[in-house]
């Protein structure tokens, strides 16, 4: 009995870990969150962020990626910034 319970708990923990590392949202979840971002409930943190000027559609897209993909995208952005800085220092005549 105890072994079964332990196995079940491990399975739940494993599922949660897999979900956390994949973070892939279902279509249904994406639609629900998109609607929330477009029309945030009054007094919610989502509304506060929107009023603060945060473009939460960026976060929605990032939430549909794995954490590794989010990190990789940031690296691409940094590489682009480095290229721009380089171009600024060495303008073509």
């Amino acid at each position, binding site marked *: 009995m105890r072994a079964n319970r332990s196995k079940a708990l491990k399975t739940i923990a494993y599922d949660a*870990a897999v979900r*956390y*590392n994949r*973070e892939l*949202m279902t279509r249904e*979840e994406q639609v*629900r*969150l998109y609607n*929330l*971002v477009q029309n945030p409930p009054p007094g*919610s*943190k*989502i509304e*506060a*962020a*929107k009023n*603060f000027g*945060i*473009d*939460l559609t*960026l*976060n*929605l897209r*990032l*939430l549909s990626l794995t*954490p*590794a993909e*989010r*990190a*990789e995208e*940031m*690296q691409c*952005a*940094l590489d682009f*910034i480095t290229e721009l800085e380089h171009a600024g220092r060495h303008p073509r005549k």
Partner: protein
Amino acid sequence: MNKFTAALKRLSDSGVNFVLIGGYAARLHGSAYVTQDLDICYERSVSNFRSLSVALAPLHPRLRGAPDNIPFVLDEKTLSQGMNFTLETDLVDLDLIGEVSGIGQFPQIVDTAVSIELGGINYKVASLEALIRSKRAAGRPKDLNLLPELEAIEELAKIRDKKD
């Protein structure tokens, strides 16, 4: 492998006990924030000071922004006598944080950390809730500016995970 994951792998391969914090951790949680440095909260123990100094030695750690003529060696003694170090290395800019505002030291932050896989290695990453708490406690404009986004992500994640 990019420079961030290369630095993280080096730390992991050397057996350094640490938790990823700061902007990179926020990014892994879904923030659109772009950061140029890596912040880690490291365990303050003699064995970890050794692991950390061995891991970083080949990357020639030096004090970020300090003049070249200021002598600096990141060894066990230096680590034991300081708390937070802002470093430049051959790979990345690296902040070693011994104590995180609003949370505490490694034992407190690792307690609620989540495990995130990058390049086949699982790293301990500060939870979103811990990041929010630390940003709020730090209270600097650059930290407070991140709060609305992090809090909204937390709310979105809660709504997403809520079963109908």
